[in-house]
């Protein structure tokens, strides 16, 4: 990541700024170089504590203390559906898992929908016969076949979708519930999609 550093210093013409200076320069850009239809939407660029910890440059490793803090914040963030039911309807979950739309900003307008898509298909293999799936995240094919559909598995699955960082701090997986991209009820539908024996994900 510091390919040019020795040459630059030798030439004596310019030096790498310290991280605090870089942070200040870049954060000024973040606050000045974006537009949004409303001030509230502009706030999407602001980082929470966990996002700051998880924005490590290059191969910089997470310290044990940082990982523990991210996990703790994640655990504290998790909310459950008002009904208390963590397993919804797998058919609704199926639709949701294949919906990648909602909440994008373009041409000064917010893409408004009743609710956001779950985005799962973008990154995860789902039903065994599906081709149009991404591979940024692990395959979810046979998720329920491997784990069953016990109450404990339902809770674990719900929490991993609501805030993946409770189990894998700073992983690439968005904290879909904690960031309010999805509602608790939507997440319960996704849980059903993953663990219900009748779901296409668990087709043999």
């Amino acid at each position, binding site marked *: *990541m510091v*390919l*040019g550093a020795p040459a*630059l210093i030798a*030439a004596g*013409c*310019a*030096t*790498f*700024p310290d991280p605090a*200076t*870089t*942070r200040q*320069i*870049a954060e000024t*850009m*973040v606050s*000045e*170089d*974006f*537009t*949004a239809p409303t001030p509230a*939407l*502009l706030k*999407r*660029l*602001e*980082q929470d504590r966990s*996002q700051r910890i*998880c*924005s*490590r*440059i*290059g191969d910089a490793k997470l310290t044990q203390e940082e990982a523990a803090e991210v996990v703790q914040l994640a655990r504290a963030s998790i909310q459950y559906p008002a009904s208390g039911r963590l397993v919804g309807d797998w058919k609704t979950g199926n639709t949701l898992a294949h919906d990648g739309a909602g*909440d*994008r*900003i*373009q041409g*000064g307008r917010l893409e408004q929908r009743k609710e956001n898509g779950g*985005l799962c*298909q*973008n*990154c995860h293999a789902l039903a065994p016969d599906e*081709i*149009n*799936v*991404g*591979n*940024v995240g692990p395959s979810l094919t046979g998720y329920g076949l491997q784990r069953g559909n016990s109450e404990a598995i339902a809770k674990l699955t719900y929490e991993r979708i609501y805030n993946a960082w409770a189990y894998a701090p700073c992983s*690439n*997986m*968005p*904290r879909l519930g904690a*960031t*309010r*991209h999805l509602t608790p009820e939507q997440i319960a539908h996704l849980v059903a999609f993953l663990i219900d024996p009748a779901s296409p994900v668990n087709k043999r």
Partner: protein
Amino acid sequence: MPVARSDIAVLAVVCLATWGAAPVLAQSADPLEVGRKMLAEDNPGELWIERGKTLFYQKRGPKDASLEQCDFGLGSGKLEGAAARLPRYFHDTDSVQDLESRLLSCMVRLQGFSRDDIVKRAISPAGSNGSDVEALALYITSRSNGMTMNISLSHQKEVDIYKAGEYLFYRRSGQTDFACVQCHGEASKRIRLQDLVHMTDKKGVQGVVSTWPAYRGMQFVVRTMQWRLSDCFWQMRLPELKYASDASIALTTYLHYQGNGAVIKVPGFKR
């Protein structure tokens, strides 16, 4: 443009259909790659180059001037190899500029165009004839075809913006918790069926910095690096990146420097 949108679409379908039946497809390790290669061999983006050239030499704007006096870093009107050294620091604006922000400066200063007007039209609607800026950016970059990307970080502002670009590349925010690296930090990854470029890999990033502006098959227009960056922020559910802003130039400086050594070949062809 001489080639209409529908013609291109028909052509593409015919090509794919023909190749779909050919045995070579079955033998390929990556059948998608075959289709991409086929389409790239007949790049409609070539048509934009001639238009960009005309726009460059034409007397235009309130000041009725051409862009021949525009200095892209190697001297007024010297285009050969200029894009291979961008972004870079410019004394007259006291800032680091990429090709598009430099072009903007020249269109305002030399030709008298309004900055706001150009920015408003810079990124054209899909399926349109494209914007002047898109055609000009492609023509100017094409004059560096065959040359090697060679960004230097010698001015302090170049170093500063490069480090800011690196910072932004790894800066996570928004409801998807994404920074650039979440999608572009590993090899052989896809969003659905679309390949993601591995940008923390030298070869991967070189493939990026040497192929923009590019013809975007799904949109039937030439797109620039500024567009590419803004489209990523859109998918990330973040606010809109201002055209030719410092943040955009920072990211481009970071990527171009990482991609030093790449041989420029534009227009690229993207899905």
